[in-house]
């Protein structure tokens, strides 16, 4: 017998491996990823009419260039409230589903991050609006980093940033890959060649439909994967 004999209770390597395996199973049973994605997809689609019809458009009739200024008031009034409600619904559903499965939910850090980012985006937009020059100054072309930052603090970017936290919480590599792809679509943005320049009100419509569709497909994909488990 050596001084390093295995203690009673089992091989320490096997005990550790069993421990990791159990922890992994619990984390799998706590995942309700599809719920989060479907709720966010729903909010994204619901926001579209608010953006289209809530947009304030001012076109100068005598301007030969036909330039118009616009203010996306609908985005500002709809998204903060809608996102906070969405995160509350996600938290509620996560807790209920996890409870049905016999485990506690691992969702609060995600919900808190989402809520904090929502407040940050709202405050930023209000500050930017308050400091915009009147009449608006045309930035043509607008620097790429400004557009990127604008998209990052917009609701669609905020959704993706919070999803990164959920992927980390759930140790969910599939969700991480999905979220990175979603962020690429929302921030680059990737419009798959679909643009609508004919009307300023519908200028942002394709990207919102694409963002919502990506979330919807992701939600369906994760739901199917869960059912197959």
């Amino acid at each position, binding site marked *: 017998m050596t001084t390093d004999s295995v203690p009673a209770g089992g091989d320490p*390597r096997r005990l550790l491996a*069993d421990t990791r395996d159990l*922890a992994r199973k*619990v984390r799998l049973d706590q995942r309700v990823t599809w719920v989060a994605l479907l709720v966010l997809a729903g909010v994204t689609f619901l926001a579209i009419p608010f953006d289209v019809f809530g947009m304030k458009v001012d076109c100068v009739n005598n301007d030969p260039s036909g330039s118009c200024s616009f203010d996306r008031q609908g985005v500002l009034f709809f998204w903060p409230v809608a996102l906070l409600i969405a995160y509350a619904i996600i938290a509620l559903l996560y807790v209920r589903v996890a409870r049905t499965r016999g485990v506690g939910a691992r969702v609060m850090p995600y919900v808190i991050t989402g809520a904090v980012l929502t407040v940050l985006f709202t405050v930023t937009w209000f500050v930017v609006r308050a400091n915009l020059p009147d009449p608006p100054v045309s930035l043509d072309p607008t620097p790429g980093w400004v557009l990127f930052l604008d998209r990052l603090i917009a609701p669609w970017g905020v959704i993706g940033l919070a999803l990164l936290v959920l992927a980390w919480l759930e140790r969910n590599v599939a969700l991480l890959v999905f979220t990175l792809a979603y962020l690429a679509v929302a921030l680059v943005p990737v419009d798959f060649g679909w643009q609508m320049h004919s009307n300023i009100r519908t200028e942002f419509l394709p990207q919102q439909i694409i963002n919502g569709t990506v979330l919807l497909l992701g939600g369906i994909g994760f739901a199917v994967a869960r059912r197959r488990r």
Partner: protein
Amino acid sequence: MTAPTPASEAHPANGLDEVVHQRVRLGILTIAHEARKVEFGYLRTQLDLTAGNLSKHLSVLEAAGLVNLEKGYEGRRGRTWITLTGAGDAALAEEIGQLKQLIARVETTREDR
């Protein structure tokens, strides 16, 4: 007579707590830690135990102050939820640390041979 071994040089197996260092009880603590709170039936399924066997292990852990048991009802169905206490959390972390040290020590001994 030999001088007492300093704590830093003590064999890691000496640091193992017999209450925690048992396959089923370690499993209960691990699941309760990951799940935040876990239902009796879930533990029984995951650990493949009978209700009586699981109850015995839970009693040991509860007596040691490592878990809390909360009995309640959902509809007409009785459900027991298990949560880890602060002491349980610390005991689990200690056990995992000791196991890792033990593995490292065994590997070092093998390399020395």
